[in-house]
């Protein structure tokens, strides 16, 4: 897109330029970017393409190949429900339905207020305490279908408290 350049925030440019101009570091750049922004902004991917000197389409192909990356912003509270085998046979599918009942989002979606997003993951390696759910790095073990509502209501309470205090 000649002529149309969106200025990339300096911190994102720094994340990218911290790596040498070699395509083997693209995965690491994307991981660091996603940790920073919660998703991969298009401008950042364009900057990677410039830095590594490969076509944008190749960068896009990588960003969409790997499951870990999101091209759309995720919610402030990102919920990962583990659907690995151990969690699955301990009814993780029910947890996903429960979340839909509570927040009306399906895996891959973000709630309209930008507060919650949901994805299923294939195993976080905590099978002995299945079923497992992770919300922003915090791991919840042996989650029950009633327990999941308590967790979500707790977060909603925090959101309301923050709204009041600010």
């Amino acid at each position: 897109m000649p002529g149309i350049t969106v200025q990339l925030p300096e911190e994102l440019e720094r994340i990218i330029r911290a790596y040498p101009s070699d395509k083997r570091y693209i995965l690491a750049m994307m991981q660091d970017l996603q940790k920073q922004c919660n998703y991969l902004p298009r401008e950042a991917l364009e900057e990677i393409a410039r830095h590594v000197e490969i076509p944008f389409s190749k960068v896009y192909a990588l960003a969409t190949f790997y499951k870990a990356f999101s091209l759309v912003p995720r919610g402030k509270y990102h919920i990962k429900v583990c659907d690995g085998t151990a969690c699955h046979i301990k009814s993780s599918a029910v947890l996903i339905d429960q979340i839909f009942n509570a927040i009306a989002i399906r895996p891959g979606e973000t709630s309209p207020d930008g507060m919650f997003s949901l994805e299923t993951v294939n195993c976080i390696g905590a099978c002995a305490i299945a079923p497992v759910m992770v919300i922003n790095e915090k791991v919840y073990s042996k989650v029950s279908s009633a327990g999941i509502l308590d967790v979500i209501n707790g977060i909603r309470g925090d959101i309301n408290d923050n709204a009041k205090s600010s």
Partner: protein
Amino acid sequence: MTTQNPPDNRKILVCCGTGCQASGSMDVFLAFQNQLHPEPGVTVETYAKATGCNGWCEQGPLVKILPDDITYCRVQAKHVAEIIDKTIKQGELVKKLLYRDPVTKKQVRSHHEINFYKKQHKVALRHIGEIDPASLDDYLAYDGYKALGQAFAMSPADIIDEIERSGLRGRGGAGFPTGRKWRSCAVQEASEKYLVCNGDEGDPGAFMDRSIMEGDPHTVIEGMIIGSMAIGAHKGFIYVRDEYGLAVQNLGRAIQDARANGYLGEDIMGKGWAFDIEIVRGGGAFVCGEETALMNSIEGNAGEPRDKYVYPTEKGLWGKPTIINNVETWANIPVIILAGAEKFASIGSKNSKGTKVFSLVGKVVNTGLVEVPMGTTLREIIFDIGGGILKGKAFKAVQTGGPSGGCIPAELLDLEIDFDSLTEAGSMMGSGGLIVMDEHTCMVEVARYYLHFLAGESCGKCVPCREGIDRMLEILTRICEGHGKMEDLDLLEDLSETLKAASSCALGKTATNPVLSTLRYFRPEYISHIHEKRCAAGVCRSLTTFDIIPEICTGCGLCEKNCPVQAIRGEKKEPHTISQELCIRCGDCFNRCNFGAIKVV
């Protein structure tokens, strides 16, 4: 922190693996740290250290006290003051935190007295839970880098001979002889060679590699250095899933410490050997566990498999000779060098030597990591070590080998498991997940689950895998929803043949195992889904209705309290009822009821 441990000193080990951390072990660890400041009258010097995963996550957070050999289970921060007061100061036990054996009902003082540990044979996991993964000194105190010192006195050919004679086979799944792999790489003439540790543990239900990388990272590094000398490589990569945050962190720290202390770098141990390791974080693609896809991913390409007419040992990373071994394989290398090939080969079965780590999970009493000699029977693992099935229900099957493996029925519980016996049974060793299923697991739904997983993970490069898995998933979904036909079973078998013969890599070739093994051992379940429109396990929702048996229901109210949609009603101590209009068939009540009062209609 000191590694010296005079008898009057006590060690408090707090497990801080992923499982125990999820149950709050970091708070316990911090509480010990805060409360163990010197106090008047306390002469014991105690320190708490964070260790890697014990594998007994179900009972976590776990706290071990040495040299007393006391194990406390499910410890919370609020218990710490009592442990210090009673056990550390007065030498008494805090009884409520001891494990109660579910069979004998006796409380046990040490985890060594528990069947779950007693019957295990730790080789790859030898240090896990004993040492502090963040401390190089700790590793050195447990014979760390001794094998490397010994390897410097050997020629590369001697090292390969030793590994070959040990009979070690790759622990990543296929069981290829490690020594032979190394030899075929060592003979290549090349300006550069590479060595890779595959830590992309993508099988759902498996976490042994995570535990080793988190709990004993130096062992992996030491194994890799020995491997580098054997094949003549100066650069190694560890490919780890980025989701394994703690593993990435502990490995990174261990690599730094090894560099700073001369175990990695230009002149290792002053012997003039140069080798260094770089961590590559994976992007969460199951197919990247396949070695050629993994190499593509390291090079910065999409992780699609390559054609395999040339082996990676000839043309691997950037076209140079490369060996790839799994985390657990690397963890075995120092042991073989130190104890000798004969000692290692004395453990295990005829063609599979040494031990194997399994992650024993699912509907079994004791879940966690289990390391046993190859050739141990499934019955010993599930019933003696695992303590049998939860809530006394009936064993139905055990799934081995992840999405590429299969389901093994009760008739084969006495199978001595090793690489070859599992393949013969229609499954495979895989990386070592053992998922126990009881009478309330639907085998058709399990097959559907794996196909759903694989459909999402197929890289899409070759047609049989990309299209075949999708079609098989469609068929299985319609059987689970009650729209299946008998011809569907033939169609599934037919499609399976095509996938096996024509897929480009092992993902597609083995994708049929979950379907074929369940068809082979659990065909009547498929037929009852199709003919009677019935799912006896109570899992397939379109085919399931739950009801309460009034004669058995005690009116305890447990199901009512936990029902997510308030579909269960009843007076206390009176039989309860389920409203079929409100019920979402989640099965929570069914799994929860302690009296077996809920039935699948």
